[in-house]
């Protein structure tokens, strides 16, 4: 059963029940009031009637001049009173010792045992009398009885009035009330179903939205409107969807970059392999190979094998950088630069490039081997970008809470797009130039990884034709835990 069905049925049942009870209560109250008024009226009439009989008796006594009535006189007066009553509306009867003496308009047996038993005691003007409402078929009568003491004899006087009218009225009112109740139920049902569905409609919307999100439309956001509960629900769902989306994107990003890395690696390995295998195969299957051809073919094989060697070396470095924990030590930057100069300056000098360095006794907390590898790669890159006669500069300055190392060249530089992608694994601005220089496209990716492990910021400032400076801002205190981020 749907929620709105439940709410609808409960509300409708409650409303109908309360209207029903109220109407019944009102009808019953009105009826009781009418019955009690009719009872009062009957009592009044009864007492009026009995007073009439007494006055007739007294009149007869006065007329005869005797203090007592003669035998049968009282009874004739009673018969006369009954005869007078016969033309009226109400009925009456008089009994003496259980024997009926006179009666008029009596529609029911008045002196039956059950009737007398069910009568209730009432008092009117100091006189005791009794009343009962008697049902006879579909007719109702109110019967009033009292004792008439006449000349030492006890007479019982009964008067009867018909009450069928008010019972009929009550039945009619009840029917009206039922009719009204039916109509009310229908109208109520219509209004309720409209109102409830309208109130619950945001629930359906939220539900559909969650369904879509669950099916993978993580970018979907719910409309944050409706009553407060629904607004909060929508907000929470949106917050959830946002975090799911971010996580999915992050994981997708990692998966994508891994796949990209593998694809690139496969390409980078297969390209030299293709040349090696192809030329080796030619040397094997050709019947005659000229000296020139042999030199050319084997030259390519050696060159491409070296390329593979570089690639595997860089991959090793990257793997080591990915898994090793930095072994932090306080390094003297002066000393570090001097060591770099010692190993690299001769290599650079062969290409006609001068390596300069400047520092003023800064101290750096970092892994010695990793930082050297970092600087080696950066200086190598700088040298590759430079022409003969140009310089490469290593320098160090102290920043706010950081030690900034930088490697500058005044070579060909890079455009903005290249700078943005420079740290991607296997990204090469100029493939043929990179290959000629024995590059594998992994140097800067390695540098970025090493920087990341040290919690250092790597920033590249470059413009085409104006050279490049790579800044490395190392924090003075290294991060407590080495960054375990995913690397590619």
């Amino acid at each position, binding site marked *: 059963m749907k929620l709105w069905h439940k709410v609808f049925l409960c509300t409708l049942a409650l409303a109908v029940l309360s209207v029903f009870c109220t109407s019944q209560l009102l009808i019953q109250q009105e009826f009781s009031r009418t019955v009690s008024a009719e009872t009062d009226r009957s009592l009044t009439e009864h007492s009026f009637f009995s007073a009439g009989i007494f006055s007739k008796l007294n009149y007869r006594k006065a007329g005869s001049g005797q203090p007592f009535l003669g035998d049968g006189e009282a009874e004739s007066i009673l018969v006369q009173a009954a005869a007078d009553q016969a033309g009226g509306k109400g009925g009456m009867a008089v009994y003496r010792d259980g024997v009926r003496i006179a009666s008029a308009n009596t529609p029911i047996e008045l002196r039956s045992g059950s009737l007398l038993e069910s009568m209730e005691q009432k008092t009117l003007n100091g006189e005791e009398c009794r009343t009962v409402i008697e049902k006879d078929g579909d007719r109702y009568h109110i019967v009033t009885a009292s004792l008439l003491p006449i000349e030492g004899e006890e007479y019982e006087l009964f008067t009867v009035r018909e009450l069928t009218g008010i019972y009929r009225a009550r039945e009619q009112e009840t029917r009206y009330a039922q009719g009204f109740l039916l109509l009310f139920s229908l109208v109520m049902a219509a209004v309720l179903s409209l109102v409830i569905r309208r109130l619950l409609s945001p629930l359906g919307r939220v539900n559909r939205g969650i369904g879509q999100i669950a099916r993978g439309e993580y970018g979907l956001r719910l409309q944050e409107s409706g009553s407060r509960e629904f607004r909060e629900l929508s907000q929470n769902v949106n917050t959830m969807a946002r975090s799911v989306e971010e996580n999915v994107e992050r994981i997708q990003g990692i998966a994508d970059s891994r796949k990209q890395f593998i694809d690139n690696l496969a390409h980078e390995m297969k390209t030299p392999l293709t040349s090696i295998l*192809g030329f080796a195969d030619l040397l094997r299957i050709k019947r005659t190979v000229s000296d020139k051809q042999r030199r050319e073919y084997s030259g390519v094989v050696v060159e491409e094998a070296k390329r593979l060697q570089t690639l595997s070396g860089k991959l090793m470095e990257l793997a080591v950088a990915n898994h090793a924990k930095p072994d932090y030590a306080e390094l003297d930057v002066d000393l570090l630069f001097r060591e770099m100069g010692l190993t690299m300056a001769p290599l650079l000098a062969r290409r006609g490039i001068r390596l300069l360095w400047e520092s003023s006794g800064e101290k750096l907390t970092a892994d010695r081997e990793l930082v050297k590898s970092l600087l080696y790669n950066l200086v190598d890159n700088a040298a590759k970008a430079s022409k003969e006669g140009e310089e490469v500069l290593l320098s160090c300055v102290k920043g706010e809470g950081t030690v900034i190392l930088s490697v500058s060249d005044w070579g060909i530089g890079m455009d903005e797009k290249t700078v943005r992608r420079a740290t991607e694994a296997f990204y090469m601005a100029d493939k043929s130039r990179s*290959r000629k220089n024995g590059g594998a496209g992994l140097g800067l990716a390695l540098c970025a990884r090493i920087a990341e492990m040290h919690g250092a910021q790597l920033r590249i400032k470059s413009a085409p034709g104006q050279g490049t400076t790579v800044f490395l801002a190392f924090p003075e205190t290294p991060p407590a835990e080495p960054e375990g981020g995913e690397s590619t």
Partner: protein
Amino acid sequence: MAEILIVEDDENIARMIEATLSMVGYRCDGCADGSEAVRRILEGSYDLILLDVMLPGMDGFEILTKIKNKGTPVIFLTALQDVGDKVKGLRLGAEDYIVKPFEAVELLARIEVVLRRTNAGRQQLAYDGILVDLQKHVVTKNGERVPLTPKEFDVLVFFMQNVDIAITRERLMAAIWGYEFEGESRTVDIHVQQVRRKLNLKGKLVTIPKLGYCLESR
């Protein structure tokens, strides 16, 4: 002889392919840039394009889409082994797909198949008085018809298409019997001996120890 354009950005691979193709006498041009390749294909009249998928500027798929109307057959060369890429290339209309690295003879065999399919290949092969008509499946030596079984015919054709190239038994088996063939290399030897005997190729179709066979030009 057919004219082939090699679109490949790696200089050494391009040189290797060129050396391989010129070994059997194809004329080749090289091109390392995507848009330059499109221009040259549309303007030129190449019989076949060897197209690298990963190229700077414009990738192989894009080039293929652009030159489709020209109708020049294309064989893809790629380092990617993704089945999706393979299907994509073939669906775009490539004739074949070779995954790097590849052997020289495999490349030549694939090229031969594609050229024959597109009728730009050799219809007749000649070697020292032997004439092979590829369409009629007829072999004559000095004007006299030599009867050969279909497999012997295939073996002879394969050697004549690769004169002076050493052919390994595995290569021959793959080319004639298919890669699934699980027979012994003895089968290959018997067929080669039959061809040698029927066409009197002793001293020309030579056995190279530890390698295979080679049909040598004089």
